[in-house]
């Protein structure tokens, strides 16, 4: 704790130094945006934002840092912030927004939010993620749904299996597909993918209740419950239905196996849709998107957002406000999300430009926001601090890659998570 205070003090004093004009380099009307949208489709999405902002007369200085799923960008951001020279906005999501808020370096964009009526446009679960101590400090650009099952219907037909709605049905279908000589479950054995599958299993066996208790509230009794044990057992069974080459495989290669009909199913977020559509496949016909087994009433969200840093220069502040407003405008939300395969964070958007999968996702987003089934994705850093989520992921991936028993896994999970929680 003490070291954290020291860091805070350093950051604060450096920020103070920068506000005194020692290192202020941002010119009037310019925004510098740190992001890690560097792959083809994503870069296009970022360019859309740039154009819209330039149309408003502000300049956009691109600050893209590729690599490590954002890890590299975060390292750069930390060093820039400590040096007292943070960018105008940066792509940061989930509980990390609170971590940055604790450092006292964020700008309050509540005025923009009030003008744009964000409170009514965003479901409250989402709005809470964007706020620090009741003020908006971030703007959401999109919503990814993580609990999807992607399936190749041709494979199911060939094996005489039915699309599964529960985990029992999943294993029935998987047996038939395996008997037909195909791979039932396409999986990339990387820790985050193991964890992505596991969070959908927990959601499927214990519902949003157990999910929230275990991943968000970190409730010890729930972590020891039968639901968790059962979830680990299901994960163990999945091992028999993957192929030998799965460890270390990238998610898009696993998606490729489903596209080519070598494998039947994959559990992955909706960014997988881009792989299907880029391969010229039609949703509903060549591939099926459905909620992961047992999770039709729930929605695990992964929301990308931009946080805004305090600016000393008034021109930069105007440009920053314009950026915040632009992000939430329907025009940007539509262009961006159609390109990226996600759905808009703001409600009541026109439906025409979106495909069938996105429409299902949009409907479920609204529905689950009311029923309480809308939960943050823990595997994608939306539910817990990275230290805690990392501790969870360690156990899950260790379990999946060894012959550990489900009881031992539950015990290790409780110890790991409690330790990480205590270290915060």
């Amino acid at each position, binding site marked *: 704790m003490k070291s954290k205070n020291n860091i805070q003090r350093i950051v604060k004093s450096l920020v103070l130094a920068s506000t005194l004009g020692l290192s202020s380099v941002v010119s009037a009307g310019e925004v510098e945006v740190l992001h890690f949208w560097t792959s083809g489709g994503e870069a296009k999405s970022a360019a859309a934002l740039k154009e819209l902002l330039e149309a408003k007369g502000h300049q956009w200085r691109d600050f893209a840092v590729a690599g*490590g799923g954002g890890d590299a960008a975060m390292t750069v951001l930390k060093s820039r912030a400590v040096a007292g020279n943070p960018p105008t906005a940066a792509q940061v999501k989930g509980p990390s927004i609170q971590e940055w808020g604790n450092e006292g370096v964020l700008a309050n964009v509540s005025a923009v939010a009030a003008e744009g009526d964000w409170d009514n446009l965003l479901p409250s679960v989402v709005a809470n993620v964007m706020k620090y101590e009741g003020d908006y400090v971030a703007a959401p650009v999109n919503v990814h749904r993580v609990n999807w099952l992607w399936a190749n219907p041709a494979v199911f037909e060939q094996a005489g299996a039915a699309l599964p709605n529960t985990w029992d049905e999943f294993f029935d279908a998987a047996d038939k597909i395996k008997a037909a000589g195909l791979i039932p479950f396409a999986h990339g054995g990387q820790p985050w993918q193991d964890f992505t599958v596991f969070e959908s299993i927990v959601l499927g066996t214990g519902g949003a209740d157990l999910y929230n208790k275990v991943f968000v509230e970190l409730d010890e009794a729930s972590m020891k419950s039968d639901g968790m044990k059962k979830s680990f057992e299901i994960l163990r069974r999945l091992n028999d239905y993957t192929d030998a080459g*799965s*460890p*270390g495989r990238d998610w898009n290669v696993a998606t490729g196996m489903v596209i080519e009909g070598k494998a039947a199913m994959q559990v992955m977020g909706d960014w997988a849709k881009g792989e299907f559509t880029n391969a010229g496949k039609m949703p509903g016909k060549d591939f099926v998107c459905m909620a992961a087994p047992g999770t039709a009433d729930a929605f695990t969200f992964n929301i990308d957002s931009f946080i805004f840093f305090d600016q000393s220069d008034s021109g930069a502040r105007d440009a920053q406000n314009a950026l915040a407003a632009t992000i939430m405008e329907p025009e940007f939300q539509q262009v961006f999300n159609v390109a990226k395969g996600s759905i808009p964070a703001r409600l009541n958007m026109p439906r025409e430009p979106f495909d069938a999968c996105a429409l299902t996702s949009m409907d479920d987003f609204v529905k689950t926001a009311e029923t309480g089934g809308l939960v943050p994705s823990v595997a994608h850093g939306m539910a817990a601090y*990275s230290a805690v989520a990392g501790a969870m992921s360690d156990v899950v991936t260790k379990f999946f890659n060894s012959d550990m028993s489900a009881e031992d896994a539950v015990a290790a999970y409780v110890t790991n998570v409690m330790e990480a929680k205590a*270290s915060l």
Partner: protein
Amino acid sequence: MFSLDRWDVAYTNLIKFSVCFIILCVLIGLFLAILLDQKIRVEGALRAMYLYPMALSFIVTGTVWKWILNPEFGVERIVQNLGFESFTFDWLVNPEMSIYTVVIAGIWQSSGFVMALFLAGLRGIDNQIIHAASIDGASLPTIYWRIIIPGLRPVFFSVLIILLHIAIKSFDLIIALNNAGPGYSSDVPATFMYTYSFSRGQIAIGSASATIMLMVIIAIVVPYLYSELRSEKHA
């Protein structure tokens, strides 16, 4: 940190990796150097060939070996296609064995370099001693065992120091080869440190592990340096 299973895995892996890597590298390097020292033809070409892996970065080595060792399209598949249906070689995806794939790739990369060092050392040994020994009736293996290899002591010294620091700081090879996987079964302290300090923001654990890496290097290298340099003075 010591209660973390992941740290346990990381440092046991480091020990397994360093021991296998250093011993095998030295043996293979020395063996190749002795073979090359037999005044054979095309020595220059062979030497260049063995040294080539050194010209590649660990990232490239890791990626190439990732493909070679992949059970779906690497060695295992080739041997199976040759007709040995029951052949399995799945170290890369087997959590028990995955660290040894790192050893294989590391040896492939570094043994050529070790060979070059030894070869230089062999060339530096006075021919007259060897002549004298052979006149005294010593067989070739005895000459190597009793005279040449002890004469290479300073070379051993540099080789061990170089290999040891490659082993302890090895990071890129593991990241490229199997990204510390499956799971975190081939984690080493360097990847552990990176994960905790940069991906998870647990700077305290990250710096603790970095400090331990430093202390391990000091604990091994300093006494070794001391004993080597002191004995040189005596000589």
